[in-house]
């Protein structure tokens, strides 16, 4: 027998309570890590956006399109080397819950502007050659079990009808955090679909490649000035700013998530800490016996703190391990809306710090009480 035997035996004393305490801590730490990961990703999603790409959208909002006729003038804008455009399609696959990003793009120019979209030459050529072809993110392919060459039918929500596409290629992300769940198809096919409802001849937004990122603000200002008095005034910003503005929509949600989540985590932590403290308090009589046998205050303090540390450590392993499994290995990304959900070493470190804090907070008081308890007084608990 060692001192570890005493700690293990004490943890098994009320096994159900120990398990529930560990699970409570694990849930709290998992929630904390998830929350921090989610908020950190929202805050850093702008990093995925490039400084050398500008996005021109309708000044009234992204749901209002811009005429396709703008393309020619944007192409002639000084400092812009490539112009592409895209339009949100908003179709669903079989079930409204199967929601994913699908939009029409001007294929060649779009691929030229997005080297992050990595696709083999053969598939690229096959897609470019097929009017109804689609280029699909590899994770979306996995999600629906699609394969290249397959024909899929999407149901329109903005543009009613059943729309058939041939999957000609699957792309991978060339950088971490770049989305791999989008469904891209040719804008010319979109125009055919939209023509029925009179929605053709427009683009949701333009993507402009600029040669000198430092000049991007001046170029954006110049573009917006030239359309200021038109029927569809524009708003041009770097892709990074565009993404951040998009994230900005979540601003208040983020705040509430943070506040409510942290409150829940704190409440669970308090309950767990109290349970651990209660468990130690119940054993004052045994502390008296140990002290009678010659265990010092420090010995007793160590035993109680070790027990609290083991419980908190198990909670950390389960909670943090679960989060790593879900985000880092399982690649959970909220259906592609927030790609790059990854538990960073910093977040893991903070979680470990919290577990240590719980161990100290829950163990310190009973450990201190046990250590300070006079043997003669403590023996009275025996009777």
């Amino acid at each position: 027998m060692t001192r570890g035997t005493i700690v293990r035996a004490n943890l098994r004393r009320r096994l159900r309570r120990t398990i529930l305490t560990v699970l409570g801590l694990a849930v709290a730490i998992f929630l904390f890590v998830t929350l921090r990961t989610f908020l950190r990703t929202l805050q850093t999603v702008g990093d995925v956006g490039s400084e050398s790409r500008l996005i021109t959208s309708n000044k009234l909002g992204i749901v209002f399109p811009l005429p396709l006729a703008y393309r020619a003038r944007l192409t002639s804008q000084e400092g812009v080397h490539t112009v592409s455009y895209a339009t949100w399609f908003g179709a669903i696959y079989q079930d409204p819950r199967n929601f994913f990003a699908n939009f029409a793009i001007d294929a060649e120019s779009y691929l030229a502007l997005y080297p992050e979209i990595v696709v083999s030459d053969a598939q690229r050529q096959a897609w470019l050659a097929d009017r109804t072809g689609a280029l699909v993110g590899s994770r979306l392919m996995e999600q629906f079990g699609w394969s290249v060459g397959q024909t899929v039918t999407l149901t329109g929500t903005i543009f009613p009808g059943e729309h058939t596409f041939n999957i000609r290629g699957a792309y991978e992300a060339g950088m971490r955090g770049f989305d791999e769940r989008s469904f891209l198809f040719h804008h010319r096919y979109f125009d055919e679909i939209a023509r029925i409802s009179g929605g053709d001849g427009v683009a949701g937004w333009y993507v402009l490649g600029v040669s000198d990122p430092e000049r991007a603000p001046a170029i954006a200002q110049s573009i917006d000035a030239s359309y200021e008095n038109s029927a569809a005034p524009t708003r041009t910003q770097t892709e990074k700013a565009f993404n951040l503005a998009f994230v900005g929509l979540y601003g208040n949600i983020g705040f509430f998530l943070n506040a409510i989540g942290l409150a829940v985590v704190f409440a669970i932590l308090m309950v767990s800490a109290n349970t651990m403290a209660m468990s130690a308090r119940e054993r004052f009589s045994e502390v008296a016996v140990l002290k009678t046998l010659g265990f010092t205050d420090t010995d007793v303090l160590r035993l109680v703190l070790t027990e609290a540390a083991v419980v908190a450590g198990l909670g950390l392993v389960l909670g943090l391990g679960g989060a790593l499994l879900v985000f880092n290995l399982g690649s959970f990304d909220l259906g592609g809306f927030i790609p790059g959900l990854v538990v960073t070493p910093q977040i893991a470190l903070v979680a470990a710090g919290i577990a240590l804090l719980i161990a100290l907070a829950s163990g310190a008081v009973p450990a201190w009480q046990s250590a300070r308890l006079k043997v003669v007084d403590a023996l009275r608990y025996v009777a």
Partner: protein
Amino acid sequence: MTPLVDVQGVTKVYQRDSQQLTVLQALDLTIAEGEYLALMGPSGSGKTTLLNLLAGLDTPTDGSIRVAGEEISRMKPKQLAAWRSRHVGFIFQLYNLIPVLTAVQNVELPLLLTPLKKKERRDHAETALRIVGLEERMDHYPRQLSGGQEQRVGIARAIVTDPTLILADEPTGDLDASSAAEILDLLTRLNTEFGKTIVMVTHDPHAAEQAGRTLHLEKGALLEQRIREGHGAALASAGSDAVQEREP
């Protein structure tokens, strides 16, 4: 010859709110090595307080206590803890075994404070359990043992470190007559066969009869003592002051 335990002018005063309660009053006592002493007296007479002082679980308000030449009344808590682990084996009325540890693990507990290796600790614990006749129940948990068996595990725990002094606080107080007799026989055996010095607090005159000497405490003072026949000469040669006093 120097007695094993030498208590001189010990007073113990407890503070209860604003009142001072004198539990022991200028008490003198010597105990010879190998002596078996019973302490009797009504509740509140100071028996357990005296036992706690001898065990180094508490310190006197005044006076001195020397055990095997060491002045324990001046020791700091940490020193006292270390001293207890080497010199005292304590037997409780309610056994006080750790319920989540087996019999052998309970006996091994005090050995965790010694430099013995794991295997040596286990061997010592098994030997102690054999002495108290419980080698068949080593891996049983306290809830799987009878009261008498639990107390025997408690005694094995008290002797496993081969302490200088065994202190028993009403060791038969929670047992039926048959189990109590077994425990008293065991204590007598430890005293006679192994030469252990035992101080036992008891309310039971029959239990006290097993001891070589019985002291009566009342209101914190030693009132009388009884020396079992044939014990006086042995005590005198062992350094006890018992023979200098008379039974009233």
